[in-house]
């Protein structure tokens, strides 16, 4: 009985370790080929557009409403302490350091990341990846490296857009609905937000860009058989990327604070 349990546990652990190993090899291979020319610039531009165009609307919408909700909630909390003048910096710091990078990364994962996994997964099951390999070409150069670079470029940009829209969303609620003065909102942001906060947000969104493109490409590249395999890979990619974003956010946050 105990031996059976240990056997099952051992098998599970070995399977997980193998998966982790293959994920690590996949990431290192992608990084290696990123620095080994030639880079496919046209494909990189195409994937930047893919990430951007797929996610822009959803990032703008969530950014605006996050800023607006923050304004509502923080205003009532800060007013209890007589600190409602600090609403601007509270919103800006929450967005720039934390919510901008995390929420925009989660939105991009759901929108573009899932589409990326499905696209690569379909290429796998329809033997398009095998076709590239059989031509003596390296599929990493065409499918993985452009996405990794596009992720690193687009995530900080989308996060910045999220931050700006969020701050203006907060401004709209704070000034137009809650009666805070326009000058107080922006001048306090200027006083309390410095470059270090922007850098923390930037490091976070850069690393989220790597995580999302890595996981989504890996899951698509190693998809199972048929439509069911692609659908499973897509779900796993979104779930794993989202969980890793939150875990990494805490980890990097505790190091950078």
């Amino acid at each position, binding site marked *: 009985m105990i031996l059976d349990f240990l056997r099952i546990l051992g098998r599970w652990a070995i399977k997980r370790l193998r998966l982790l190993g293959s994920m690590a090899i996949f990431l290192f291979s992608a990084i290696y080929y990123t620095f080994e020319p030639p880079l496919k610039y046209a494909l990189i531009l195409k994937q930047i557009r893919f990430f951007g165009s797929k996610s822009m609307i959803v990032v703008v919408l969530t950014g605006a409403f996050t800023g607006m909700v923050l304004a509502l909630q923080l205003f009532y909390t800060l007013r209890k302490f007589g600190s409602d003048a600090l609403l601007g910096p509270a919103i800006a710091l929450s967005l720039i350091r934390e919510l901008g990078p995390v929420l925009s990364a989660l939105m991009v994962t759901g929108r573009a990341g899932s589409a990326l996994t499905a696209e690569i997964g379909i*290429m796998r099951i329809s033997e398009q990846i*095998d*076709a590239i*390999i*059989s*031509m*003596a*070409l390296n599929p990493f150069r065409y499918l993985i490296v452009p996405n990794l670079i596009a992720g690193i470029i687009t995530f900080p940009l989308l996060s910045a857009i999220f931050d700006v829209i969020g701050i203006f969303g907060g401004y709209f609620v704070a000034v137009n609905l809650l009666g805070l003065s326009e000058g107080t909102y922006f001048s306090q942001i200027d006083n309390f937000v410095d470059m270090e906060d922007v850098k923390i947000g930037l490091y976070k969104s850069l690393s989220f860009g790597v995580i999302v493109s890595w996981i989504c490409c890996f899951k698509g590249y190693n998809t199972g058989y048929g439509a069911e395999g692609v659908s499973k890979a897509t779900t796993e990619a979104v779930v794993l990327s989202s969980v890793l974003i939150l875990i990494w956010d805490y980890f990097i946050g505790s190091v950078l604070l």
Partner: protein
Amino acid sequence: MIEITDLTKTFDKKYVLNGLSLSIRQGEIIAIIGRSGGGKSVLLKHIIGLLKPDSGSIFIKGHDIVKAKGKTLQHIRNMFGVLFQGGALFDSMTVFDNVAFPLKEKTKLNKNEIKERVNTALLDVGLTDVEYKYPAELSGGMKKRVALARALITEPELVLFDEPTTGLDPIMLRAIHRLIQSTHKKYNFTGIIISHEIPEIFDVADRVAMLHEGKIEIVGTPDEIKKSDDIIVRQFLSGEA
């Protein structure tokens, strides 16, 4: 040209290839026949180096693709042209870009030379006015033709056909078989065809090998196969269980 020796492959402890040996001569077209799920496509993937066997060797022009890595593996694969079962055309590219892809990525030909080669390849497979269509806009037969044009565009020494006529009507089936014969005549490649099409494949192949329970049951000319007394071959050719 190709020497396969004692090839063994298991999936989930089940033998798919079980000590398979086969010799393929330069310039011939050999058809590999056998029951569905019998390991024919698995054998093909081993020859391309997409799968690694549990044991055995596959020598292609003196290089063992099982052990080959890096530049050697690339050198071996440069000899190949592969027509995959579903065509494996790139969805996001037009027919022209699909056929031109190996030339753009592997040669230093200029735009005009590539255009000329692609047009010739498409004419060879009987296609005109499809250059700017996407694979989704083509019929099954047209997709196979485009895939054949792409497989032949670099004038490979070895062309592998994975069930090139599956899912096609009898007229299109014969058309694709004729196409394989005519392109073979023109380019003189060594061809390996995985096929279910009995007896049509006998008109195309120089030799036929039958795969049964992970091994080559019989190999010979189409006439030898048709006249074989082997009970497994007779059952397969007559379609009996």
